[in-house]
């Protein structure tokens, strides 16, 4: 460590020795103790560093929830979220199992109504035919 290197450190890393490279810090501090020009440089730059330190970036705590909300969801979570988008967590905690349990029932009803067809009597003649078990071909003759 010499005078020139110490000035380089001060100009690059600033007046706070905590920011100087760790491996050179001790030697730099020893050099500083006997280097009046370097000490004067630190005095001159102190207020500049204080101005830099005054700039504190504002925290953004709301980002945490936004980031967690953006995570890729499993398909089942996506389905449930699609079905109940506005439920808060506590309500969803109770409703999700209920809804999940009722899904097989709903699925069964839908399948049942679409797979099995029932002859429905559309007209009053059809109804009579069905009730009386009358042979319609002889009636037409």
């Amino acid at each position, binding site marked *: 460590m010499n005078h020139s290197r110490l000035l380089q450190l001060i100009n*690059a890393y600033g007046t706070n020795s905590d920011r100087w490279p760790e491996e050179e810090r001790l030697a730099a501090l020893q050099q500083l103790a006997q280097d009046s020009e370097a000490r004067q440089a630190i005095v001159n*730059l102190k*207020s500049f560093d204080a*101005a*830099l330190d005054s700039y504190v*970036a504002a925290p953004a705590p709301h980002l*945490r929830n936004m980031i967690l909300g*953006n*995570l890729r969801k499993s398909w089942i979570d996506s389905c449930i979220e699609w079905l109940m988008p506005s439920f808060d967590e506590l309500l969803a905690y109770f409703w999700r199992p209920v809804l999940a349990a009722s899904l097989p029932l709903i699925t069964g009803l839908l399948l049942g109504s679409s797979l099995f067809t029932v002859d429905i009597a559309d007209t009053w003649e059809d109804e009579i035919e069905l009730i009386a078990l009358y042979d319609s071909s002889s009636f037409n003759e």
Partner: protein
Amino acid sequence: MTEAELVEQLSSGDEDAYRILLDRHLAPITAYVTRMMASNADTEDIVQETFLRLWTHGTRYNPDTAKLTTWLHNIAHNLCIDHFRKHNRMVQEETADEPDEQEAFVDQLTHFENAKHVEQSLMQLPERQRSAIIMCHYQGMSNRDAAVILETSVEALESLMARGRRKLRKLLETKI
């Protein structure tokens, strides 16, 4: 559990591990991006994208080559640069040195005014000088880690910081 182990858990979709990492790194990454972008409206998008990449590309992180904070800073830095390029806001690197002035800096502003001026002045620096100062001065990053992110040598990084600080000092002096 180490950070490397937590990152490993991410590949199996472990949200608890992700939350721990998010809580550790959100504040410094937000501070870095905020200073790089000067509280630009896109700051939040860049922070979100950085952490989304931790979730989706966490397996690419190699704990043998870098600390997780360096890896995340690297992603955030590249996203900031992409943003500047897209919006033509890149301040080109200067090669000429500023005059070396060592005059006493008079602190006459209130804390808030100072902070505002520092933010504005930082934005007037060439991007690499700004990045170097933010990483080493504000983020407390080691010179080696900052040099890796900026893909340069430690000597070149120190030169960037010295030139950046000189210019910043001149800019701030004109504002008080």
